[in-house]
């Protein structure tokens, strides 16, 4: 799979400069983070949190691609210091290939259609709940079919992934592929309900013909509801992940749950108020004061300085205050003030 994706990435890059309609887009996030814990300043940092470079070539009307590289100045999952680079997306979309109307076959390093992670636009600075609580990576190596129901009644996706996410390749990938189903229904304008089901696992089931005690099986579910009316919308999400180690008799099955609510209110074209409240239960069988569970509260605003012709913000400032409130007895909250300048420029090559 890794070689296929690499080949695809090179193909997309090469053809990007030959094709008549290759879209190019760059997005950068300059962030100031000020963090306090128990009266002490624990972080006061300026960073280039993310830089996305994207190429979207079209190979006729039925085939298009996306190649996305992420730049970052720091990442807690790696020891990168100063600058880092990750391939985030490298996939091809094939339309009208299947007898299903409006269906697209996608192959490569593609979006993970779990919960809201595949459509999350960082209305608040914090990550999507599935990403933040490690339910799913935003991209993974795989293939799948996605499409729309007629008359705007919703969309669906069925996919198979490595399951380990886009940051892992080679020996870190086990031999089992992981299926996912996602469905979203909009019965009336402004009311959307749906859910995702994802079966994942980590480490191979057997090593040298023996059961592997470090094998982990995950059963994940996401329930999503969005209500929108005029300038107001509210997105609610319930996530559940059950972890089991089938070959470790001492391990007790663990269930994590997240409830996340994200209200947005647009005051006018320039200004919107945003909020978010997450309740993360790390283990439903263990008292919250003992298992490291916490709530996150976010309040803030977005100020759109410029938009493109399709009304997508291209230059905007995000201000968020975030409090992480740990449930453990005698624990103190972590407070963060983040100010982020996001700027986007794009064009068509050729």
């Amino acid at each position, binding site marked *: 799979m890794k070689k296929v994706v690499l080949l695809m990435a090179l193909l997309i890059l090469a053809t990007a400069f030959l094709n008549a309609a290759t879209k190019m887009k760059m997005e950068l996030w300059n962030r100031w983070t000020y963090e306090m814990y128990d009266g002490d300043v624990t972080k006061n940092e300026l960073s280039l949190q993310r830089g996305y470079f994207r190429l979207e070539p079209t190979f006729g009307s039925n085939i298009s691609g996306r190649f996305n590289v992420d730049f970052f100045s720091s990442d807690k999952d790696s020891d990168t210091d100063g600058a880092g680079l990750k391939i985030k997306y490298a996939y091809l979309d094939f339309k009208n290939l299947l007898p299903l109307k409006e269906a697209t076959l996608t192959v490569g390093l593609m979006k993970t259609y779990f919960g809201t992670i595949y459509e999350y636009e960082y209305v608040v600075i914090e990550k999507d709940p599935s990403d933040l609580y490690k339910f799913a990576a935003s991209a993974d190596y795989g293939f799948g079919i996605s499409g729309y129901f007629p008359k705007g009644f919703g969309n669906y996706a069925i996919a198979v992934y490595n399951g380990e996410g886009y940051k892992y390749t080679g020996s870190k990938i086990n031999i089992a592929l992981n299926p996912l189903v996602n469905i979203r229904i909009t019965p009336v304008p402004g009311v959307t309900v749906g859910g995702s089901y994802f079966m994942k696992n980590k480490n191979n089931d057997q090593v040298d013909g023996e059961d592997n005690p470090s094998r982990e099986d995950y059963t994940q579910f996401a329930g999503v509801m969005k*209500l929108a*009316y005029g300038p*107001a919308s*509210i997105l609610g999400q319930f996530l559940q992940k059950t972890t089991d180690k089938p070959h470790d008799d001492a391990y007790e099955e663990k269930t994590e749950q997240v409830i996340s609510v994200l209200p947005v*209110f647009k005051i006018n074209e320039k200004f919107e108020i945003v909020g978010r*409240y997450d309740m993360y239960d790390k283990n439903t069988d263990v008292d919250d004061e003992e298992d490291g569970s916490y709530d996150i*509260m976010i309040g803030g605003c977005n100020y759109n300085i410029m938009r493109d012709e399709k*009304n997508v913000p291209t230059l905007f400032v995000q201000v968020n205050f975030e409090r992480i409130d740990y449930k453990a007895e005698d624990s103190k909250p972590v407070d963060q003030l983040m100010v982020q300048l996001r700027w986007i420029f794009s064009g068509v090559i050729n």
Partner: protein
Amino acid sequence: MRRIIALIAVLTMVAVPVFAGKDNKITISGSTTVLPIAQACAEIFMDMNPEVNISVRGGGSSVGIAAIIAGTADIGDASRHINTKELNQARENGVNPYENIVANDGIAVVIHKNNPVHALTLAQLKDIYTGNIQNWKDLGGPNLPIVVISRDVSSGTFEVFNTIVLQNEKVLDGSLMLASNNAVATTTAETPGAIGYIGLGYLNDNLNTVQIEGIMPSKQTIQSMEYPISRTLHMYTNGAPKGLVKEFIDFILSVEGQEIVEEQGFISVD
């Protein structure tokens, strides 16, 4: 939970002034094909109703539909139908796109004035735009390379041409992809060997119009949809039009409004 309820209450309080009524203003954006109809009708409507202010912008059909979805325009002009992805996005955002057909149009295929070719089939047209035919001599014309001029892929005119003529095949690499009907008309008129396609309202004496499948684009052949590259032109609203927007659309659909449509070179809906 109490904190969530408190947050919703605060947002609701902030919402009240925003839901208050709008002034006598209509904002319109979208298709460059529909633009002349919107502009001409807006001017007359504002003359008849001096207290009303109508702002009209182009940008393309995708822009018009995006504006309706984002709630930044009262009317989104489009020379194509809304697609499933857009419809899905709109409904998720609480928007119910309502299609108001305001005119009929044919996409006329035009060539340089000195080019004697006068008729093409849809298959020949597809072959030209996909690069299978590259010289006018293969079509009974002069020994002259064909210069293929198309609209950019985000335009509604391209989408209609793409569906009816190209049948989703890729336009020849190296074709000129231009951003407006005017640009196609001007470039075709100035380039021997050129072929382009434009809305009927943009035809002029500096261009030769080609018959398609033996049929010339005209009021009769487009109203009857006999002309193969015919289409309807739309003004999308969020739900059935109401209030001032309804008055404006009713005006466009009135006898006077449809006369303006015809004056702009398009075909009336009745």
